[in-house]
């Protein structure tokens, strides 16, 4: 089956007759290591599984891992190293939008391929990136519609960390809310790492919103939910919907502090389908029974698989051919069910709503009937 190296690699990538090199570029140190560890594990799992099945175009995948150290310039430096020095055929990496923005020009300049796993704010599209997470509308709109119907919600309080993703997400959410005649009664942002939420909790008590809509990220979450609970806000009575808490964050928050909250994601570890059961089992086998899998971790798992499928369709590792062949690639083995790459290099995927349990898992309470079309430049929401 193996095609000659000359044929699959016309651009001097690090491909030999037996191997192909790829890069993994995440933070294993610094504040973002908390979130990115799961992605690294998922990508390594996928690569191990692919290698076990014979690799890509008959070549075993070799991984070069670099540490972005939660520092955007370091991401850029390491990306350049992977592309220029190591000549990797694909990079799986980045988590925050900031790191992606930092490496994007590098990938475009040196013509590399990045598989980016995180749900993000949209407003971007690149030949050199496959976005395996959701852009904002895929994550937000269906979830908002669901709470509006289910909880008869009229008023919303938006709270997020102070950076582009929460702000952009909330902008879209606000448009959507106001379009439907509902009302935003508060919108607050806190610096990353902020740990004091008592004032905003008082404001929430004052405004009595039907829904608290939260996009607080990182360690701040722990403080936020513990303080909510301590302030006597019972999430079984007060509806809270988050677009930033996955099973990963639940570890630190503690299930008992967030139980009852709703999260709007495309994947939960508790999803019941054969793909997912296999995936969860394999993940735990590789990384230990204690480990949990969040939305982004699953999206990261898709990266190597999508790349393999694309390379095999294109019969080449050449970046241009991969980019061109990507639209339409389907991955039926996806733990989230089934995904397909759109023309715009994002994935078609479902929106799901889960309810947090005390054991740190989610019960899925809703999923969209169909895959939702990715729309990174949503008209009417800008």
């Amino acid at each position, binding site marked *: 089956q193996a095609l000659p190296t000359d044929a699959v690699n016309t651009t001097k990538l690090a491909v030999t007759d037996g191997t192909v090199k790829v890069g993994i570029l995440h933070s*294993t140190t610094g504040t973002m290591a908390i979130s990115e560890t799961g992605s690294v594990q998922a990508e390594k799992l996928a690569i191990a599984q692919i290698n076990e099945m014979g690799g890509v175009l008959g070549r075993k995948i070799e991984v070069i891992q670099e540490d972005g150290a939660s520092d955007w*310039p370091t991401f850029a*430096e390491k990306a350049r190293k992977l592309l220029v020095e190591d000549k990797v055929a694909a990079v799986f990496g980045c988590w925050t*939008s900031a790191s992606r*923005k930092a490496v994007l020009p590098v990938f475009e300049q040196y013509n590399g391929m990045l598989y980016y796993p995180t749900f993000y704010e949209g407003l971007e599209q690149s030949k050199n990136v496959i976005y395996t997470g959701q852009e904002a509308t895929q994550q937000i709109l269906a979830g908002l519609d669901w709470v509006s119907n289910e909880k008869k919600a009229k008023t919303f309080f938006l709270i997020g960390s*102070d950076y*582009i993703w929460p702000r*952009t997400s909330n902008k879209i959410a606000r448009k959507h809310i106001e379009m439907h005649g509902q009302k935003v009664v508060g919108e607050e942002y806190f610096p*990353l790492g902020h740990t004091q939420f008592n004032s905003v909790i008082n404001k929430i008590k004052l405004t009595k919103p039907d829904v608290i809509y939260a996009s607080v990220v990182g360690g701040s979450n722990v403080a936020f939910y513990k303080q909510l609970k301590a302030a006597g806000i019972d999430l079984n009575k007060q509806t809270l919907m988050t677009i930033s808490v996955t099973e990963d964050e639940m570890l630190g928050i503690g299930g008992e502090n967030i139980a009852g909250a709703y999260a709007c994601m495309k994947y939960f570890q508790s999803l019941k389908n054969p793909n997912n059961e296999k995936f969860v089992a394999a993940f735990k086998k590789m990384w230990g029974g204690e480990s949990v899998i969040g939305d982004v971790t699953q999206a990261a798992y898709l990266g190597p698989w999508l790349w393999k499928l694309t390379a095999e369709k294109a019969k080449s590792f050449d970046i241009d051919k991969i980019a061109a062949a990507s639209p339409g690639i389907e991955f039926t083995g996806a733990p989230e069910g089934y995904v397909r790459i759109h023309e715009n290099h994002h994935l078609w995927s479902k929106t799901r709503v889960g309810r947090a349990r005390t054991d740190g898992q989610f019960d899925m309470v809703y999923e969209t009937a169909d895959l939702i079309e990715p729309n990174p430049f949503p008209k009417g929401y800008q």
Partner: protein
Amino acid sequence: MTRTPQSNLFGRSFWRIDGDIAGILLLAALLVIVLPLGLDIFRLNMVGKYLTYAFVALGLVLCWGSAGILSLGQGIFFGIGGYCMAMFLKLEASSPEATKIQSTPGIPDFMDWNQLKALPWFWEPFHSLSFSIVAVVAVPALLAFIVGLAMFKRRVGGVYFAIITQAFAAILTILIVGQQGYTGGINGITDLRTLKGWDIRTDDAKLVLYFVNAALLIGCLLLCLYVRRSKLGRILVALRDKEDRVRFSGYDVANFKIFVFCFAAALSAVGGAMFTLQVGFMSPSFVGIVPSIEMVIYCAVGGRLSLLGAVYGTLLVNWAKTMLSESFPELWLFAMGALFIGVVMVFPNGLAGLYQQFIAPHLRRLTARRSGGAAAGAPIIPPHTAAD
């Protein structure tokens, strides 16, 4: 009088000119000949990036080493310099044609994402390259002037000053991150492409920028050397040790502090601007507390009293960071931590101290046989002046 002071002084300063200038020439040779020949363009560009931090370290040598003013907020000035440059480059990259898919073409992309409909007023002047270049130096210097005026006239000093500059770094970071419509937020200003139509992303451009950067650094080094050797340089040392005595010798001490602080700020800003040009973006992660402390560490590793040491220290720490994190992703923080502790504990005067202790005596013996006896009989040089 047995010896005239003139002849003594001449002898002494001649040796110093030889020593320092030779050091600078050696560094220049390393930067413009050895490294470009020895490294590929990717690594060379990385060295170029490291060298931009050396501007900050130079400023710290004057500010901290000479005058004893420790600023833990030099990232502020590095960042502002970088942002001024980035604003110009971003505007050039945001021509209406290049941004026609935006809802408001002609403004930077992040503004469009943040629903801005027009360019904010303070961005307007950055259409002009000459304004931007002036701003790179002037804005940070002005800010430093205001901060310095407020602090030094009130005689805030020492650790207090250090902590307050840290607070300023925190303030500025929060502002930049919070005002993302105007600043690009936490992402920074990314995707910079051309300078007056010249593509700064190509290998050739990187090579040119590297040399420009190296030349600027050598220039700044000479400038610092001039400052340090002037009477002003000696006054700085004097006020570090005996501020009251300087005051009672008729000097307005605050003015001198303000001057070095502004000077260091301007140097940092030049570094920041060169960073933007070579790396292609600027982000608030250079403004904050962590990078500011790291910059102090570069200076400490090099030897806080030595200008040349600062450059080598910067190179060493950054090179170590890159290499260790490539080779030992799990362990590199241990190594970095150990490096800092080691430098402080074992080589309190950094690389420069090492040089003074182990290399310089041999060199001196080789070069100055005649005065060799005098050197041997001289009192032991206390460590804190070794690198002066």
